[in-house]
């Protein structure tokens, strides 16, 4: 065998050293190919490992059904507050703030944390989500000034979180809504609000200003995830897209209950949603009533969600039923996305969605416990 190999080597006119060099080179080439092929999936997974472990740790600290049930059965808000002091996530805020404010701060901090640790490729969407705190604070400021609240009362409404909190705090002593908009000069929200300010000045209602902020947020959120180049971004796009579509549907349903037509609704719509593109939204806005909107949604994934609660709506006339069903749809779809990429974006979406649900539920419970003799069964119905 050795002789045969030696013969082959010499017949090729190669010395032993040259043969060795060729073998070495072949190994280097094969090795390089293997390294490139083998490490590609690792490169996709690697950026998510650290943030995923962190969000899963926080997910583990979320209240389970049994704990939520215990909270529902609490006798008063103080009991709930004491219960939440046992959670490291809420405890640090409860000494200085009211229960609802502590919940809002914690949620704001959660958005901020996720936006900081999310991998670069998906970070922009979470950075947009972190703007929710600023937008909520601006809305509170506008509402407070519309109602003519004092500086102290206005300050009480602000949640101390978000990148603009200190700037907004300085605006609590201004007198009018117009002054608030002027005070926001230099921020990304100024041009958005200035555009609809004439409408406010005409009607004296801050609704157009609030809607403009919502529209800006959702537009930006959708745009941040609009180029789904890989599976993680595709899941993110679906997750974000569902939120945009649901916001559009909620707006249309509310408008139809109030008897508004296309011209009245269209300025507040996100022009092109995820599943509901421009032409479909036009159909929905032009529908006669709520039933017409639901019929037009046939063929989309939102149809079954709304059709299921249509009989109950016909009995009660409460549009909140649709909103609850759509919120549940968002939670369920986020849960299914969270299972699609366990080593990718899945755990981040799962955690964020469940955190939002937890805070929403805790607020519902807290609000109910502030009421005299609010039935426990009613609270359970109101939970997401």
């Amino acid at each position, binding site marked *: 065998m050795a002789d045969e190999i030696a013969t082959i080597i010499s017949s090729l006119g190669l010395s032993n050293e040259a043969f060795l060099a060729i073998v070495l080179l072949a190994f280097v080439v094969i090795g390089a190919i293997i390294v490139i092929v083998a490490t590609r999936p690792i490169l996709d997974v690697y950026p998510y*490992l650290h943030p995923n472990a*962190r969000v899963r740790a926080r997910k583990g600290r979320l209240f389970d059904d049994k704990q939520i049930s215990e909270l529902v059965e609490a006798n008063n808000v103080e009991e709930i507050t004491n219960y939440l002091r046992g959670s490291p996530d809420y405890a640090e805020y409860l000494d200085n703030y009211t229960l609802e404010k502590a919940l809002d701060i914690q949620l704001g901090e959660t958005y901020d944390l996720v936006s900081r640790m999310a991998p670069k490729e998906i970070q922009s969407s979470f950075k947009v989500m972190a703007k929710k705190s600023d937008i909520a604070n601006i809305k509170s400021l506008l509402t407070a000034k519309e109602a003519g609240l004092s500086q102290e009362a206005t300050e009480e409404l602000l949640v101390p979180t978000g990148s603009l909190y200190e700037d907004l705090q300085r605006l609590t002593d201004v007198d009018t809504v117009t002054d608030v908009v002027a005070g926001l000069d230099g921020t990304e929200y100024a041009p958005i609000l200035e555009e609809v300010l004439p409408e406010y000045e005409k009607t004296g209602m801050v609704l157009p200003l609030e809607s403009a902020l919502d529209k800006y947020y959702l537009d930006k959120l959708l745009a941040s995830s609009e180029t789904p180049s890989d599976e993680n971004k595709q899941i993110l796009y679906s997750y974000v897209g569902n939120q945009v579509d649901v916001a559009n549907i909620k707006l249309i349903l509310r408008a139809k209950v109030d008897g508004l037509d296309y011209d009245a609704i269209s300025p507040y719509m996100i022009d092109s949603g995820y599943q509901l593109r421009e032409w479909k939204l036009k159909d929905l806005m032009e529908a006669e009533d709520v039933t017409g909107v639901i019929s037009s949604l046939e063929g989309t994934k939102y149809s079954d969600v709304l059709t299921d609660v249509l009989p109950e709506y016909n009995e009660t006339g409460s549009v909140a039923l649709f909103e609850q069903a759509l919120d549940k749809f968002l939670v369920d779809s986020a849960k299914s996305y969270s299972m699609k990429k366990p080593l990718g974006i899945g755990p981040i979406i799962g955690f964020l969605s469940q955190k939002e649900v937890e805070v929403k539920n805790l607020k519902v419970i807290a609000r109910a416990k502030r009421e005299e003799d609010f039935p426990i069964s009613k609270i359970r119905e109101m939970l997401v």
Partner: protein
Amino acid sequence: MVEIALGTALAAIGAGVAIGFAGLGSGLGQGMAAAGSVGAVAEDNDMFARGIIFSALPETQAIYGFLIAILLLVFSGLLGGGEGLSTTAGIVAIGVGASIGFAGLGSGMGQGMAAASSVGAIVEDTDMFARGIIFSALPETQAIYGFLIAILLMVFGGILG
């Protein structure tokens, strides 16, 4: 210049492949497990010990590769004390290195992913520890197969004994 027989030189390539690829898989796997563990420890200090255990799991592939590489170097005569290997045995030695090298690469990467995922599961629910260890240990088998075949090749390929 030291004269090295062709077979011995080929065995040296085998040794390099053995530790090179097994080490690469082990390093990638350990990096993934450690990245997950650091994230877990950042949220929960009690995860340190468990994080270390999961991060250490993908170390074994490098150990197998290292052992095979040492055996090749010793029995090929590269470390002295022998006549050197025949060309045929040298080619067998490349097979030995490829066996544990590539098996270790796949096994290490797989184990790293499983370990990182297990750390995430445990930090969410501590009861997952035992199950996490079992799932993370599964990709070890490929490295064991590679190691066994490498030993058999050395024994029956005229390198050992």
